[in-house]
Each structure stands twice: as structure tokens, then as C-alpha cells.
């Protein structure tokens, strides 16, 4: 049976949602779990597993990293304001691992070939996650410009591939993808 309805409780929860709790090496301890995740102890609270959300995944990945419960609601436990400053090196590595697990956006390092066929373009590329082939729609929003020189390709399965700096590609590679830019 549930507790009787309490307005104060609801108001308290609403207020709690507005609070910003910063997590630093002084007030919390992160630990690796045997299953490949991370647990957290903050004050007298302990979380067997936490999730790491980047609040600015494109502009500043390690700034204001939101640490959340691993439940479906993913309630926020706290925020790491500056990952590289606020935690020790080992914890930083731990959190970075979790970030690269959660956010999978291979960076294209080399464009081997791009073939167009009936409305689709087939890419054969090298990425920082190994060689890969993917296909995109020629029409529509398969290419997202994050800035003048930074683009994302969205493939048919909704995977993302990033080119962080178009100017770093060779002229030949740039020509191969010029039609999409």
C-alpha cells in the first residue's frame, strides 16, 4: 500500500529538481564495477551503477557532465563541472570510458571511396574505431553541419560519423564528398 498523498513531499521533490549538486573528488567516490560500469558513493548515498551524460556532447564534452541513476527515469545525482579539473586522473579515465561507451560517433580519418547509386551514397572509410562501410540517403538530412568545417554523416541505420575538420582531409578526399557539403 502506498503512503497517503502529501503535498509537502511533492513540493520537496520539485525543489530538489532545481538544485545543482556538484560532484568533486572531495565529496564523492567513483568505482569500477565487475560488469564494466561505474558505481558512485556520494555522502551516505550509494549507487551500484550510474550513467554518464554529456550536457554539451558537441561543444564541450567534458564540461558539466551529468551523473545520473541507471534507472529508466535516470534521475540526476549531480554534475561534474569540469571533468579534468574536479576529479583525480584515475576517475577521469573511468568517466571518459563511460562517455565513450555511451556516445558512439566514429571519427572519419580517411575516405577510401564514395560510390553513388540510385539515390544512396556508399562510403568506404577508415575511422578511429577501425575500417567501416556505411550508406547514406542522397536526399534529406543525412549530413549535419556542426560548423563550417565540422560535419556529421547519418547513415541509414542512424549511426553517426564525424569529420571534425574538413580542411584536414586531402584534396582528393574533399572532392569525393564535395557533393554532400
Amino acid at each position, binding site marked *: 500500500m502506498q503512503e497517503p498523498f502529501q503535498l509537502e513531499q511533492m513540493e520537496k521533490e520539485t525543489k530538489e529538481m532545481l538544485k545543482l549538486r556538484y560532484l568533486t573528488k572531495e565529496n564523492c567516490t567513483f568505482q569500477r564495477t565487475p560488469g564494466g560500469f561505474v558505481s558512485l558513493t556520494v555522502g551516505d548515498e550509494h549507487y551500484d551503477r550510474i550513467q554518464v551524460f554529456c550536457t554539451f556532447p558537441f561543444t564541450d564534452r567534458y564540461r558539466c557532465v551529468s551523473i545520473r541513476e541507471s534507472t529508466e527515469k535516470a534521475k540526476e545525482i549531480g554534475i561534474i563541472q569540469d571533468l579534468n579539473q574536479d576529479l583525480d586522473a584515475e576517475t577521469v579515465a573511468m568517466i571518459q570510458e563511460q562517455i565513450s561507451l555511451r556516445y558512439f560517433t566514429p571519427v572519419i580519418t580517411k575516405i577510401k571511396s564514395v560510390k553513388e547509386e540510385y539515390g544512396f551514397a556508399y562510403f568506404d572509410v577508415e575511422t578511429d*574505431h577501425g*575500417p567501416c562501410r556505411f550508406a547514406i540517403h542522397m536526399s534529406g538530412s543525412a549530413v549535419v553541419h556542426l560548423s563550417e568545417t565540422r560535419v556529421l554523416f547519418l547513415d*541509414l541505420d542512424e549511426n553517426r560519423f564525424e569529420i571534425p575538420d574538413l580542411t584536414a582531409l586531402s584534396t582528393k578526399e574533399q572532392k569525393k564528398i564535395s557533393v554532400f557539403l
Partner: protein
Amino acid sequence: MNLQYALPSHIRTAMGIPESEEIWYAVPFDLTNQGVFTQNSYVAVTKKTLYVAEEGNLFYRIALSDLRDVRCETLVNNGILCVEEKKTDGWKKIVRFSMKHLSRFAFLAKGIRLLMKENFRRVISVEYEKTCPICGRALPGTRVCPHCEGNRHLTIARFAHLCQGYKKQFLIVTLMMGLASVTALAGPEVQKRFIDETLRSGHGNLTQVAEFVIVMAILTALTILIRYYRNLWSANLGAGISKDVRAMLYHKIQILSLSFIQERRPGDLMNRINRDTGMIRRFMEEAFGNIFYYIMLLCGAVIMMWRISWKLTLVSVVFLPLALALSVAWRKNIHRRFHMQYQKLDENNSALQDVLSGMRVVKSFGKEWDESQKFQKKTGEFAEIQEKNEVFWASFYPLLTFLMGMGIYFVTWLGGLETLQSKMTVGELMQFITCATMMYGPLGWMTHLPRMIVQMLTSLERIYDVLDEQPKIQDDKDPVDRVIEGKVEFKKVGFGYKSYLPVLDEINLSVKPGEMIGIVGASGTGKSTLINLLMHLYEVDEGEILIDGININRYRLSCYHSQIGVVLQETFLFSDTILNNLRFARPEASEEEIIRAAKMANAHDFICKMPNGYNTYVGERGYNLSGGERQRIAIARAILTNPRILILDEATASLDTESEFLIQTALNRLTEGRTTFAIAHRLSTLKDADRLIVIDEHHIAEMGSHEQLMQQKGIYYQLVMAQLQMQNLERPQEMAQ
């Protein structure tokens, strides 16, 4: 979506799966645990064990009996399969995959969970693959890859069968194409004779000149006439076939289950009806009407040229591949350039639309200048590309025409030499040059042909993909036609729109005829799903629904639906008159019956006050009704069918107090003596319900009368108290206003 890949033998060996164990599921994955792209990596599940092989080596193995739970987690652009072992606490990540396999693993997790409960029902995924697992090509929204598994011969044969009703049109178009090529080839022949036998013979006369002019005029007139009829019959053929296909598709989509339609984006089906059938029409008009004409013209021209000089013909043919290659290269380049231009134009248009529709926001934040600067930059980029393309077109097109015509210049030069040496007459030279021009002419068009054929075949395959789909809900072999009394039973009903994601689980409910059931619960808990099942729009995954003790599947669909009345929150009225909207439910209803229904629904008065009464046109181009008015029309529509089972889904939500009162009284009249299922967020509207059910976490969490549930102090009590508190909070503000 395949969940039973053939496991390569070396993987099976590496996993150590005994020969005696049957593989229940086997799926590949494409990322190592460290996130590196991989091949040769599989998950296999037997009735007893879960195996994972990464890069060809066994990575993880566990008996299903040692697992507490398994789940597929969606991360950002990738996913993981996690297990919870009985011997250790916490979740363990065992497989990582890209979005390509996300759905597959979600289904697999559901399958493993069933096996853990010793339920050996195989989970089947009806979702389509996005790319062909064999060749890697993108699938054009079809189940099988047209290149690898599709049977193009069969598609063509089926299309030919479909065209059988158009034999006459086919025959006429073919005949016209033959005639067109004959008249085209006759021109140079007549010219040759005129030059050699009249102009150059030395004894030509005025009559012969007049004869030539008349013959040429007749040929020209014939050409125009033939072209007119060819176009007319091609259009007739294309429009007729595409009309037939469109009608077939529309009919099929109407009878297919809702799940089929919801699995696809609405635009996708619209495209199949409009764009793919349009593609067939265009092909019949533009390509089919010309194919034979150009082939016959090409062959005829070569034969005539050969007759005049085989040596020169060979020289001309040598240039053909060069001209063809030039044409292809040119087309690719142009396509690339103009694709970029169109893309920029699209960007411009969407930026413009964005700002125009958000003008109030732009103005209220005083950002007009910033926005116009942004747009100026975009439009500048477009102008730059456009200028470049225009310059390219203007400078390179004449050059290309010159290069494409190289063969002709060469032939003219060689032919000229032969004419000077009297090996060829002037007339023959002219005829040869005209024929060579005819041969080079259609080259550009011909290079488009393979693309047009493939596009047409792809469209056909997308169309047959829908036509071949079998509706999941069909009439029983021996359907039941009877008047429903209104007893409804849900027995252990389980359902999910995606079979791996349950929305309702183990629903047990028995409703007496005439009883009113109020359905309560938070958003997304499955209230609307429950009534979708009751409306028989979907098939239950588990359990059964009985209407008067007979399984819902046994009723004839039309008979069952005619006895159900539905009033939804978002009332849909067709772009038609009020009269026709009311008659949609029962076309044979008399005027008196319609007025009586409208009166019961408190709709008669406002309808009468409109200038055109019941003949008022509503919808996009007609009279704009308020939410309450639309709702009352929907209620009248439901009353008209005299339903035995009534479904009200948030029928009084988002209405003002007066409308709500009018609708509530109308609804009270409507629900009298009918089995009613009503969903409402505003709990006060359910005060007349005989019983209330609370749906939470896929189950019926609470059931009983208002008083019983209030005493239970459970979810319903919480909801009522929360709404009361909200009203108390609102009231002082209302009074202050």
C-alpha cells in the same frame, strides 16, 4: 529482421555448442567491447545456454538457468546487451553493437527472457532491414534486396500480367514507333534523290522541285501526326496502368492492419501511392514510348549508312564509344553540380520557412537583424554555386556539343574527300551525314535508359512489397454475424506494438453488458492500447478477448465494427458536409434519424444556426468548427450507429466548461444501457462509471468502484488527491481574476 543467421561452422566450434543443441537464435554484432568495428562476432542462444563469440573467439558463455535477467540498452548511436547473473550482483555488459543491430538485439533480449522462463515461443521480428546483409546496398523499403534475392524476372512477368488489359494501347504505341522511325528515315532518302536526280542531274525541272516540296511537306505532316498519336497513346497507357496500380495499392493499404501502417512513416506509403505509381506512368510515357523508336532509328540509320559506304560507317561507329563516354561523364558532372545547387536551395528554403513560421519569436526577442544576416550568408552561398554552375554550363556545353559532334565532322571530311573523288554522290553524302546525326542524336538519352529502367523496377518492387503483404487481421473462415449483447472479457491478454516491448501484460477483465468502465492511469501506460485491442485494430500477442463469450477473431470484421461506437479526443472529420460526416457511420440513415442523433448529442442547435445547416462544408476548405462542436458531431455519429459497445477516449478533454457540460450530458444519454469503456484524465468525468480500472506498469493495478478505490488508498487515491490539490491551488487564482 533476421534473428536466425546461419552460424559459421568455425564460430560454432569456437563457442563449443554441442551438436545435439539446437540454435534458437543467432545474430551477428559489429563492435567489440572496446568499440572497435569487428566482423566474425556472433551471439548464439540455445534452449539452455547463451554464447558470445567476439572476433571468432569465445568471449562469454552462461547457462540460461544462471541468469537473473537480460536486457538490451539503447545508448547514443549504439547499444549494449547486459546480463544480470545469479551468482554476482549488478549488470554486466557482454555485447556492444552499432545502431544497425539495435532492434535485432532488443528482440533477442525478449527471446532470451522467454527461454529463461522455459517458454519456447520463438520471437519473430517483422521489422525490415535497412541494408542488404549480402551486398550492403540500401534496401528501397522492401523486405528482400532487389539485387540479391529479388526476382526481377518475376516482377517484370507480374507487371506484364497487369498490363494485359492494355494490349490495344501497347500495339498502337509500338506501331506508331515503327511508323515514326520509317518517316524519319524516309526524309534523308528523299533528300538524296532530290539532290542527285533533280539538282545535280542537269535535267531537273520545276515540277520535280514542287514534287519534292510536297513529299517533304507530307513527311513532315506525317511525322507531326504520328508523334501526336504516339504521345497520346503513351500517355493513355501510362496513366491507365498507374491508375490501376494506385487503386490496387490504396485498396490494399485500407485493408491492411493498422500495425502495418504504423510500422511505416506516413510519407512512405504516400510515396508508394503517388511517387512510385508516378514513376511507372513516367516510364511508360517517356521511356517506353521512345525505346523502340530510337532502337529502330539507330538500326535503320546504320543500315542506310552501310549501303552508302561501309568504310565510312565503320569510322562513324568508332566514334560512338567516345561520344557515349563523353555523354556519361558530362551527365555525372552536371548531376553533381546541380545536386549541390538544389541542396543549397533546400537549405535556403528551410531556413526561410523556419524564420517565417517563428517570426513572432524573432520579433519578440528583437533578433530581426541577426536573422537577416544569417539568411544573407546562406543565400550568398547559394548564389555563388548558382553562378559557378551557370558559367560552367555556358562555357562547357558548346564545347561538349562540339566534341560530341566530332564524329560528324570527321565523317563530313572523309565523305567530302570521297565525293570529290566521285566515289560518292552529293546526295549520298548528305544522306550519310543526316543518318550519322540521327545515330548520335539519341545517345544522350540512351545513357539515361539503364537508370530509368532500374528506377521503374525499384518502384514496381516497392509496390509489390505492399501488394504482397497479408493483412494480420482477417475475417475468420466461418465468421460470426450476430447482434452483440455487450459482454466483454479480457483473458490473460498481452500485447506490444513491437513484440519485444510489452505495453499490456496479463490483462484480466470481465465486463457485464451495459456496464461502464472507467480507465485511469498515467500517460503511456497502455490505456489507449487496451481500447485499440477492443476495437480489434490489432491482434493480441497473448491471451484472448471474448465478446459475449465468443473470441473477437471469430466475428466478421465489418459486423463487429458496425456495432462499436468511438468518440476520441482528437475528432477527425472528413472534408465534407456535416450530413455526410454523420452518415459516414451509417450511409442509409434518414434525415429524421440524423436530427434525432444530433439532438441527443446537443449538436442540432448549433448546426441549425449555420447558414447552410446540415449541408455546411467542414474541414480544410470549409467552416471551422470549435473543438466542442466537432466533438458533438462525433458523438452524434456514434449515436447514429446505435453501438452495443461504446469507447470514449478522452472525449471531454481540453474543452471549456460549457462545452464540457453539453458533451457530458450528451455522453450520459449515449452511454445509457451500453457497455462503455471511457478513458479520462479528469477523474470527475468518470463519476458515473460502475467500475474503475487503474493501469500501471502494463498491468491492471487496481479495480473497483470509486469508493472502494479511495478506501484502498493506492494509485487512484493518489491521483484523486493530486487533482483535488491542483483545483485548490487554481481556485484562489481564478477568484482573483
